[in-house]
């Protein structure tokens, strides 16, 4: 369903993506892992059309990116400060011709799906905790029942329990919807909770790609070092 071929992207002559090839089958969940600064966010932004690749192809069911079919949960939730929660959730549908009361009802229903009550609907994002903001961001991402949902570091900045809650929500909601999902993270608990397939990005290329089950027995030294969190191995970092 999502096909990425030979994707290249540089910033100020510094290469970030150096020929990325990926395939995500319809209805499956791909988790892209990799160290900080390896181009995971750039990859997702290229697929979304937020960044223009230098070269390469991105096809969604054979066509280019279509924002109407996408949902996105940002790392910091990226909720609109000036709008109450229910307007954030129903933002994409505000030009659909539905009445304000319909939009509000829909927003409350979506908030319910991510475990938030109707009392949150009239609050502003600044009044919510980080975990609640992520949930609202997730409700906004699924509000229009998109075919494809992207998650950018969904558990960053959350305590382990809340991270587990968000991972479970992502898994439940996307399975229920039958959506195709792409998640970028360096949190292995998210990988185990969300992934059908895993791709490891390093030095702007996919170093390993396989199913979650295959990951445990994979012999790729980059993947093994990343999973183990070892300081010794082919991935070098500044200490």
């Amino acid at each position, binding site marked *: 369903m999502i096909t990425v071929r030979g994707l290249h992207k540089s910033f100020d002559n510094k290469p970030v993506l150096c020929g990325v090839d990926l395939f995500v089958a319809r209805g499956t969940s791909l988790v892209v892992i990799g160290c900080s600064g390896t181009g995971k966010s750039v990859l997702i932004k290229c697929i979304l059309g937020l960044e223009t690749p230098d070269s390469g192809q991105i096809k969604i069911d054979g066509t280019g990116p279509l924002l109407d079919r996408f949902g996105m949960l940002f790392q910091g939730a*990226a*909720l*609109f400060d000036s709008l109450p929660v229910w307007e954030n959730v129903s*933002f*994409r549908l505000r030009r659909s011709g539905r009445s304000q009361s319909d939009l509000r009802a829909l927003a409350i229903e979506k908030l319910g799906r991510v475990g938030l009550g109707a009392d949150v609907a009239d609050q502003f994002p600044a009044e919510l905790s980080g975990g609640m903001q992520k949930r609202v961001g997730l409700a906004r991402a699924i509000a229009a029942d998109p075919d494809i949902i992207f998650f950018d570091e969904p558990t960053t900045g959350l305590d382990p329990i809340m991270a587990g809650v968000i991972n479970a929500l992502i898994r439940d909601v996307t399975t229920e919807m039958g959506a195709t999902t792409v998640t970028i993270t360096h949190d292995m608990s998210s990988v185990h909770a969300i992934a059908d397939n895993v791709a490891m990005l390093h030095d702007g290329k996919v170093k390993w790609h396989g199913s979650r089950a295959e990951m445990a027995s994979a012999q790729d030294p980059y993947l093994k070092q990343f999973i183990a969190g070892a300081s010794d191995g082919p991935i070098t970092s500044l200490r």
Partner: protein
Amino acid sequence: MIRLLAWIGATTLGGLAALGRLAMFTSSTVRHSVTPPFYGREFGQALFQIGFLSLPVVGLTALFTGGALALQIYSGGARFSAEAVVPQIVAIGMVRELGPVLVGLMIAARVTSSIAAEIATMKVTEQIDALITLATDPMKYLTVPRVIAATLVMPVLVGVGDVIGIFGGYIVGTQRLGFNAASYLQNTVDFLEQRDIVSSLVKGAVFGFIAALMGCYYGMSAARGASGVGAATKGAVVAAAVVILAANLILTEAFFAI
């Protein structure tokens, strides 16, 4: 010497590139202003924020300036026995020049800074990216409503500023300098011409366009982090003030060239 030349070249190219980006942003804003979708609620909010909420600062600025102008003209005019021209010069000074320029600068301080800081914050917190992923064009949703609102509401603010400025001169003239109230008003009305008022309102519209455009441009171009927001806000206010003053010279030349 080579380094100096390289620096001059790089600075010149950088300046031209920035000018090009601003020109493209301006043309994109104008193009989006005449093509749907239009965001009525955002336009209404911008109208309220830029117009109604600016009235106190515009009114106070004009009131104090009009009063001070009357004192200055009286004091200066006394050097060649021309104290009687206070009503006429206050009127012409406020309507042709001080009203539009001061209101423009106050709007640059109050509105441009606010727009730049708000949009820059949205940029660094990925809210602009979020808008795009929600199939909403940031130019149409953020820039166009603010620029159109500022362009439409600024002539009204300038008109209000002109009237309050003249009123400030009237208060000082009649209460402090001993002018007859009726003749002060009569002299003011008789002396003003239609083109004085038209030029004042046109300047207001142009300055409003500049003020909002600069806020949006610098906000959208903000770099990362809190320092990026600060730099965008400062750059927007400085650019808006300078461009407003430059535009004032050009418009004054266009309206009143002999």
